């Protein structure tokens, strides 16, 4: 299946992926409407390591997803290889946060819409109007790519 891969030596640390992710998941049609006055809480996160090293991290959609195996409610499931979240079922116990070796599932906040959901994760933009990952589409240096390939092995 198509997955997101990151090439850290190409990442310029611009954090644009975070803004496009926040916009894509905001439900707004206009980027400035979506982001004005908002402290973004994106589903992809750029780490700024020592020595100017940067890279973006989002859900790897593992073939053996510990989050899904450990989900206490059944809210996390695998659909055609993509790990999906049923926000209605999730109660926010954070077991998945304790189990994801990438730190790619995060607590959520109510956001501009005011609708609160307990956690959030990358669903490859299948859960929003974008349909294809906005982070990869807008990465200026192709450091985030959306391509066919296997599951990473994790830790």
């Amino acid at each position, binding site marked *: 299946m198509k997955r997101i891969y990151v090439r850290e030596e190409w990442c310029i640390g611009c954090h644009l992926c975070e803004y496009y992710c926040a916009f894509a998941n905001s439900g707004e049609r206009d980027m400035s409407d979506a982001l004005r006055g908002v402290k973004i809480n994106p589903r992809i996160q750029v780490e700024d390591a020592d020595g100017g090293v940067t890279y973006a991290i989002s859900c790897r959609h593992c073939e053996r997803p510990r989050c899904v195996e450990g989900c*206490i409610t059944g809210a996390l499931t695998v659909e055609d290889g993509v790990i999906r979240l049923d926000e209605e079922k999730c109660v926010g116990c954070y077991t998945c946060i304790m189990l994801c070796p990438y730190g790619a599932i995060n607590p959520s906040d109510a956001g501009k819409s005011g609708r609160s959901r307990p956690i959030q994760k990358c669903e490859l933009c299948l859960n929003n109007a974008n349909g294809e990952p906005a982070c990869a589409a807008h990465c200026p240096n192709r450091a985030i790519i959306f391509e066919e390939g296997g599951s990473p092995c994790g830790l």
Partner: protein
Amino acid sequence: MRIVIIGNSTAAVGAIEGIRAADSAANIAVISAEMVHTYSRPLISYLLEGKTDIDRMKYRPADFYERNNVQTFFGCTVTAVDAVARAVVLDNGEHIGYDKLLLAAGSRPFVPPIEGLCGTEHYTFQSLADAKSLEAALTPKSRVLIIGAGLIGLKCAEGIHSRVGNIAVAEFAPRILPSILDGGGAALVQSHLVGKGLTFHLGNAVASVDGHTAALADGAQVPYDVLVVASGVKPNIELLTAIGAKAGRALITDSCGRTSLPDIFAAGDCAESIDLTDGRRRVLAILPNAYLQGRAAGKAMAGLEEPFTEAMPVNSIGLFGLHIGTAGAMRCEPETDNNPQYSDVNNYRRFFFSDNRLTGFILIGDVNRAGIYTALVRAKVPIDTINFAAIAEKPQLMAFSPAARKQMLNGEKNDS
């Protein structure tokens, strides 16, 4: 082949999914004492709190049994296993034959021998039925006494808090959540709960109850209207120990769930695990463990050997908005040694190291990305190969070398 599963909760679901991953034809029968579709037990407190409902509590979708072609016997209790005839005996007298049998019967509340408890009304908090009967007993004026400040007792307190007058908790150990927290962490969580109106009697066994008042070991008298006993669980192992299965506190199995009896498996809260953090056998009564044990057993019953060897304690619990994440082993004197390395009032972080490994940790407050720490424990990563100091306050993958990170994030995918 006919596979019979006793129980219809997490371990049973894991087994069904494991069987079907390997064998679409095997005949599967699930027998459960409960009358209901498989549900998530941890959600009973959220149900009372109004944060979920019966439908959303379903651990798997409504068509789960149909889709997996599982025959269900709900409301049937297994009373005996006849290993010679290879059949289980139900409470209605019916016999159901098996080629492979899985005991996924979980555990039941342990009710301590407290004077007067036997003859007086009290509630436990483990099943949907328990939650419903407790709910029916509550009034906005109820004074509730919960015996046990473990995970179940405190989740119960959270679940019923807004529907009762007040809640007192009595605990034999000197601190709350004694199985997962050190002294400093427990004190922090306790003050949060006291701020929500809970009262605690710690280091204090309940000596006797009379239906209205509990007498504590230190002489205190605690009046109550509703008594909840949440002082631990007891694995349901008797069906197999009665016919000679090896057991410690729970059934002893191999890493595919095989008991010492031929063609009989066990998984979930009724089976012990080998805790990878110290190599010891213990009961790890947590849901992810039950699922993975069940799945390995299911696969093995269907002929696919995929041992589950990664059992370890991982607890994630939210109490009145405060999150606690713990994993692995606490190697310290929890009462006397209260020095978290990295901590402020709202963000407690404590790490336990031994032999150049992170063996366990306690986080209270900010648990974001804590799975990175869990992975370090699970994979036994030598601490001197990573930059732990860089992530002690905030878990990040920057602790790893670029090469290790590339492998983690991209796997076999090569750069182009």
